[in-house]
C-alpha cells in the first residue's frame, strides 16, 4: 500500500515536471522565434514600419495581414519592429541593472560595516521610492525615447539584484574556500569577481529573467501612457495607445489585440524559462 502511494506520487511528480519542462521548451522555441523575427525584421516584414502603404484603418487583407493603422501604416510590419524594441529594452535594462546591482551587492556584502550600511540605505531609498512615479517623473524630465527608457528602467531595477548578491556574499564569505583565499593574500577584487561572483551567479540569472520580464512590461506601460517610445517609432506599448479611443476599441480589433497578445507571449515565455531555470538550479525543491 505504502509503495503504491509512493509510486502514484512519483508518477504525479514526473508528470508535473514533464509538463513544466514542456512549457519551458515551448517557451524557448517561442523566444527564439521572437529573437529571429527581431533580428531579421527588415527582411521579414512586408513593409517599412513607418511608411504609409494603404488606406486608413483597413481591416486585415491579403496585402496587409493584420490590416493598417489610423494613418495607413502596415500593422504587421510595426508589430515586428515593436518586438525588436521590446527585446532591446528588456536585454539592455537587464544588463544595466544587473551590473549596477552586482557591483553594489558585492561591495556591500564583502566590505560590510559603514559601506554596507550606506549602500543598503541607498538600496532601501530606491526601493521605497514609488517605482512608477519615479519612472513617470524621470520620463517627463528627460526627453522620452528609447535611450532614456532604457537608462531610467536600468537605474531603477537594480535594488533586487543588489540585495540578492549581498545575501550570497554574506554567506559565501563564511565558507572555507573564501577564507583560504583571504589567508593566501589574494587581492580583494580577484576574490570578489573570480571567486565569489561565479558562485552567486545562479540566483542572479534567475532574478535577471524576472527583471527582463518586468522591464518589457514597464516599457509597454510607459509607451502606452505616452511617456515611453515616441511615435512614429513603433513599440508594442504605443501601438495599444490608440485603443483608449472607443471606435478603435470596438471596431478595429486588429489594431490593439495583436500587440497585446505579443507582449503577453513574450513575457510569459521569459517567465516560464526563468521558472525552469529555478527548478534546474535548485534540485532539492522540484517546484516552489
Amino acid at each position, binding site marked *: 500500500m505504502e509503495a503504491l502511494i509512493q509510486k502514484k506520487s512519483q508518477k504525479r511528480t514526473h508528470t508535473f515536471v514533464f509538463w513544466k519542462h514542456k512549457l519551458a521548451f515551448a517557451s524557448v522555441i517561442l523566444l527564439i522565434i521572437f529573437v529571429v523575427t527581431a533580428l531579421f525584421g527588415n527582411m521579414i516584414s512586408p513593409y517599412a514600419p513607418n511608411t504609409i502603404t494603404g488606406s486608413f484603418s483597413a481591416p486585415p487583407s491579403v496585402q496587409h495581414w493584420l490590416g493598417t493603422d489610423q494613418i495607413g501604416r502596415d500593422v504587421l510590419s510595426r508589430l515586428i519592429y515593436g518586438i525588436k524594441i521590446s527585446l532591446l529594452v528588456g536585454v539592455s535594462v537587464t544588463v544595466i541593472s544587473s551590473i549596477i546591482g552586482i557591483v553594489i551587492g558585492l561591495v556591500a556584502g564583502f566590505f560590510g560595516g559603514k559601506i554596507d550600511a550606506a549602500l543598503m540605505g541607498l538600496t532601501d531609498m530606491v526601493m521605497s521610492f514609488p517605482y*512608477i512615479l519615479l519612472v513617470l517623473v524621470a520620463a517627463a524630465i528627460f526627453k522620452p525615447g528609447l535611450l532614456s527608457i532604457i537608462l531610467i528602467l536600468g537605474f531603477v531595477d537594480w535594488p533586487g539584484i543588489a540585495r540578492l548578491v549581498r545575501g550570497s556574499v554574506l554567506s559565501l564569505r563564511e565558507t572555507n574556500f573564501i577564507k583560504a583565499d583571504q589567508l593566501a593574500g589574494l587581492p580583494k577584487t580577484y576574490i570578489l569577481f573570480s571567486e565569489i561572483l561565479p558562485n552567486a551567479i545562479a540566483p542572479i540569472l534567475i532574478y535577471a529573467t524576472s527583471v527582463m520580464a518586468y522591464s518589457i512590461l514597464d516599457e509597454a506601460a510607459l509607451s502606452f501612457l505616452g511617456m515611453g517610445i515616441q511615435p512614429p517609432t513603433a513599440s508594442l506599448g504605443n501601438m495599444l495607445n490608440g485603443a483608449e479611443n472607443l471606435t478603435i476599441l470596438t471596431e478595429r480589433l486588429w489594431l490593439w489585440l495583436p500587440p497585446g497578445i505579443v507582449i503577453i507571449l513574450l513575457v510569459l515565455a521569459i517567465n516560464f524559462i526563468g521558472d525552469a531555470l529555478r527548478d534546474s538550479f535548485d534540485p532539492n525543491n522540484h517546484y516552489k
Partner: protein
Amino acid sequence: MRKYVLKKILFAIPILIGITIIDYLFMSYAGNPLQMIHGPKVSQAAVHAKEIEYGLNKPFYIQYLVWLNQILHGNFGYSYKSFQPVSDLIASHVGPTLLLMGSALFISIALSIPVAIYSATHQYSKGDYTIVTASFVGTSIPSFFSALVVIYLFTVKLGWLPSSGMSTLGENTQFGDVFRHLLLPVIVLVAATMGSNVRYIRSAMLEILQKDYLLNARAKGIGRFLVINKHALKNALIPIITVIGMQIPLLFGGTVIIEQIFSWPGLGLLTMTAVLNNDYPVIMGVCLLTAVVVLITNLLTDILYAAVDPTITFK
C-alpha cells in the same frame, strides 16, 4: 519592542530626506514651470516678477530648504495649475484611491490564500499545475491590456458595467452606483496581483508542510482540516504579511495606469495630470505621501512579523 520601533523610525528619517532631495533635484531639472503657466507671450519682466514671488530665482538648496520648512509646517504649497492648496488636492483624491486599492488588495489576498493552500496541499496534481500556470499567465498580462479587454467585453459588448469615473454623471453618488464603477478596475488589479500572491503563499505553504511540527500535528490524528487550517495556516501568516507589505507600494504605483484608463478620480489621475503639466508642488506632494506610505508599510510589516512570530527577537 518600543526601542526597536524607535530605531526603525530613526532609520527611516534619513531615507525620507534622501527621497525628498532626489525628488526635488528631478523637479528642478524638469524646466521652468512659469512658462508652462503663462505661455510664451508674457513679457520677461512679468515672468521675472513671478519667479521672485515663487522664490524660483534663489539657488537650488535654498528653494529646497524653504520647501522642506513649509512641509514641516504642514504647508505643501499650491498647485501651479489650479492654484489650489496641494494638501486639499491630495485630500480630495486620496479617498477614491484608497477605496480602489483597499478593495483590490483585500479581494486579491482573500482569493489567493485558499487557492494557494489548495495548490500546496495538492502539489503536483492537475489542479496545482493549472493554478501555477495560470499564475504565470496572470503576472505576464500587462494591466493596461487586461483593462482594455474587460472594457471591451463588459462595457462595449455586454453593456453590463460602466468603465469611466467613479459615479454616473448628474446623479447623486450612491453606494450601488460607485460599486458598479468600482468593479472593472478592481477586477483588473486583482488579476494583475493574484499571480505573484498565489505563488508566494504557495511556496511558503509548501515549506511549512514539510516541517516536523506538522508531522507531529498529523500524527496526533486531529484531521487534515485542523492540521492545515490551524497549524499550517497560522505559520503561513508571516509570508502573507510579507505579500501584503510588498503589494501596497506596488498598488500605489499600479493604480496610476488603471486610474488613467478608467478615469478614476484618485491620486494616480492627479499625478498623471501633474506630470504632464510640470506641476511640481503636486508631484512633490504625491511622491512624499507615497514614500511615507511605503516606509510606514515596511515598519508595520516588521512589527507585525514580531507580533505573529514569538521567536523573532528585536535587536
